[in-house]
């Protein structure tokens, strides 16, 4: 991808967040889309490209009255929207469309107009994982973690501390689901979900949505909002079965996607002012910091414990690598496919409008996971051209 050739000109979340029992899934997509169009000063007739996951881009286009020349239905789990941004940037550069809308909406808590989680008993997961009692992400995403902890020398306290520090960020965000401070003991005394995971190490289940609008950097300067440029992108996929991931201590999809994005952006880790790592569970930021190359294997827990990713506190200023500054999936919100909210927070940080704004931030990395380490997408944003 050509650096800084495409920009985000519209970005918004659903009007409400958390528990929205009176809006269906498609309604959440539309609410977020209309908010993003208002943000960009656009009407549905101005949009000529659509991308979404969870529902089909056909449903989205028809519902909003859009006649697109570009449709992307890439659906690889919660990072799908990172891939949509990547594909949209390529499509805009190739002239397939000028103004692309990417939407997410999910009735994760209320399940209004939402499908089931069913998987066919003849699929590989249905044959070789489901019969052994996996229920859902809490018993699947967590499977590699005891091996990871043993390999790295990490403890339950290390996992708990990820949640504690993200709650500190959440406290600064009026839209966060949970804002009250928690301690490592609170996390370790919360109900057991699936050893070694306690409830407060697992993400929320909420309703909500978000949408982005991208166009060429050339056009972007004529829009009402400060353009947020796409500096580099990456994507990869590994396996639909967590039991078959190549290395339980490192995600291949993370490594491939992250490296591609950094190479495209032509930046080094020290250039990054702000980082989002999709945190469906407390181990994800640890894997992410290591697999993206911010920390050496075995150093991520110490890096977090030493408050390098934390907000300012009585004992010191903001850490050198502010991470998950919206509170993350652990405390802000998590509808099921959280990647959209990581992108939204990166865009807010680049616009200078975040609730917990990082001063003078110029480069933000949003890194997503799909499925249980099944897929990954990385987007690096910049507010300077």
């Amino acid at each position: 991808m050509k650096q800084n050739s495409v920009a985000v000109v519209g970005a918004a979340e659903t009007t409400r967040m958390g528990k929205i029992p009176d809006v269906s899934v498609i309604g959440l997509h539309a609410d977020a889309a209309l908010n993003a169009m208002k943000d960009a000063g656009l009407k549905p007739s101005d949009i000529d490209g659509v991308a979404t996951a969870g529902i089909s881009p056909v449903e989205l286009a028809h519902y909003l009255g859009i006649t697109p020349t570009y449709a992307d239905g890439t659906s690889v789990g919660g990072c799908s929207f990172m891939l949509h941004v990547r594909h949209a940037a390529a499509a805009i550069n190739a002239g397939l469309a000028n103004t692309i809308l990417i939407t997410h909406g999910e009735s994760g808590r209320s399940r209004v107009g939402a499908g089931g989680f069913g998987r066919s008993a003849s699929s590989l997961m249905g044959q070789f994982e489901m019969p052994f009692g996996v229920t859902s992400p809490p018993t699947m995403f967590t499977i590699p973690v005891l091996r990871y902890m043993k390999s790295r020398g990490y403890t339950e306290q290390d996992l708990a501390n990820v949640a504690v520090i993200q709650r500190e960020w959440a406290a600064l965000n009026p839209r966060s689901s949970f804002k009250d401070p928690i301690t490592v003991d609170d996390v370790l005394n919360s109900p057991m979900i699936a050893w070694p995971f306690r409830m407060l190490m697992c993400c929320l289940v909420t309703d909500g949505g978000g949408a982005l609008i991208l166009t060429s950097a050339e056009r972007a300067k004529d829009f009402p909002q400060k353009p947020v440029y796409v500096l580099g992108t990456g994507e990869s996929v590994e396996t639909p079965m967590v039991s078959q991931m190549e290395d339980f201590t490192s995600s291949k999809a993370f490594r491939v996607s992250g490296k591609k994005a950094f190479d495209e952006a032509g930046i080094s880790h020290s250039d990054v002012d702000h980082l989002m790592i999709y945190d469906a569970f407390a181990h994800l930021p640890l894997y992410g910091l290591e697999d993206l190359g911010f920390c050496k294997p075995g150093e991520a827990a110490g890096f977090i414990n030493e408050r390098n990713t934390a907000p300012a506190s009585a004992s010191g200023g903001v850490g050198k690598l502010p991470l998950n500054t919206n509170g993350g999936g652990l405390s802000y919100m998590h509808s099921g496919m959280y990647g959209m909210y990581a992108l939204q927070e990166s865009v807010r940080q680049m616009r200078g409008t975040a609730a917990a704004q990082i001063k003078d931030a110029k480069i933000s990395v949003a890194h997503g996971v799909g499925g249980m380490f099944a897929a990954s997408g990385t987007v690096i944003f910049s507010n300077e051209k």
Partner: protein
Amino acid sequence: MPRMLPEPTPETRHFWEGCKDGELRLQRCTDCTHSYFPPRAFCPKCGSRDIEVYKASGKGFLYSYVINHRPRPDMGTEPHSIAVVELEEGPRMMTNIVGCPQTPEALQLDMPVQVKFEKQTDDISLPLFEPAKG
């Protein structure tokens, strides 16, 4: 509530037939000798279609696991392990560790385990694992 059971496909039938007959059957490539799982009609390492089914030792070690405390009615009411074992032949597979307490103390990573088939229906037996004897 009956346990959720696999529905074999043409590419996996040999595996489930093996479980029914008390054999853990893996596949290996006759070109590059790579052993692999889950079953498929070609080698995922080199792409060769020249592969064979063979009887594995059924031995391995506990690679990673969780102990599920969430409701899963077909698995009973008590917390249960959901584990991944690494087989002597190399591949890893998901399973349950049975024949020992379902506690972190009893379930030590790297402990040797051996396969134990548990009949579910006339067609399906599941490959579970228990701590190796002796």
